């Protein structure tokens, strides 16, 4: 584990930088006034919500290696999202409506909450699958077709998230 002062910098620093960056993007222009006001407000928000912030071990993305992995994963996911949309479009436009709705269960393999969120949301975004519920045993996923259900057997999302969790 890294020394406590460094993790404190991350604990307060990263939310501050995110809030401040968000402020700067939304502000009409960068001037002394917006920068000063934004900095002050971001600092206040971080101080006031200091009990709500993520610890480093709760939030894997605070580590640079994991963040870069995540960016790579988002790249793959974007391609899958486009495929998902085309697949669903084909099914919806097909006059025969070839669907076979079914629930499937993917056994729980994650401990970290953030990784669960990433897995659930990524599944919802990929072809014909929708995360319905999460319990202790696993994810309940609704699949639109047999192929979509089969694809969950060995999906790249699962492989990636499990690898991510193991590299803690």
């Amino acid at each position, binding site marked *: 584990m890294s020394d406590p002062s460094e993790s404190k910098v991350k604990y307060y620093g990263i939310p501050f930088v995110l809030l401040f960056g968000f402020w700067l993007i939304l502000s009409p222009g960068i001037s002394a006034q917006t920068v000063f006001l934004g900095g002050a407000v971001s600092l206040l928000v971080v101080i006031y919500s200091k009990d709500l912030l993520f610890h480093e071990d709760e939030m894997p993305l605070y580590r640079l290696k994991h963040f870069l992995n995540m960016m790579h994963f988002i790249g793959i996911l974007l391609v899958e999202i486009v495929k998902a949309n085309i697949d669903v479009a084909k099914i919806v436009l097909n006059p025969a409506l070839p669907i076979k709705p079914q629930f499937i269960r993917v056994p729980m393999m994650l401990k970290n909450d953030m990784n669960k969120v990433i897995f659930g*949301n990524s599944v919802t975004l990929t072809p014909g699958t929708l995360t319905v519920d999460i319990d202790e045993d696993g994810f309940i996923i609704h699949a639109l077709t047999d192929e979509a259900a089969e694809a969950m057997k060995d999906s790249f999302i699962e492989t990636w998230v499990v690898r991510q969790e193991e590299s803690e």
Partner: protein
Amino acid sequence: MIQNGLIVILLVGGIFFFLVGTMGLLRLPDAFTRMHATTKCDTLGAGLVLVALIVHQGFHMISLKLLVILVFIWITNPTAAHIIAKAAYHSQEKPSEVKVMGKE
């Protein structure tokens, strides 16, 4: 010229996916299958329209703001779908057999 062509292609694509999403909402039988159509087609529909606007603006502060909108849509859309699906799942009888999929 090329820029305009690209914008038209992206906009038409975005509108196409919105159309498909709406048709899916009307044609598919129950809540879960309808969620499939609406979430998928809204993400890419709204995504393509926003990318078209980014291309129209070029490299500009407004493009950055549009990108932020896009990122938030793509985070909130599956989350909202999940909540709706969860509510539907808990308000009906549990399916008797649930196939287990996943790595052994």
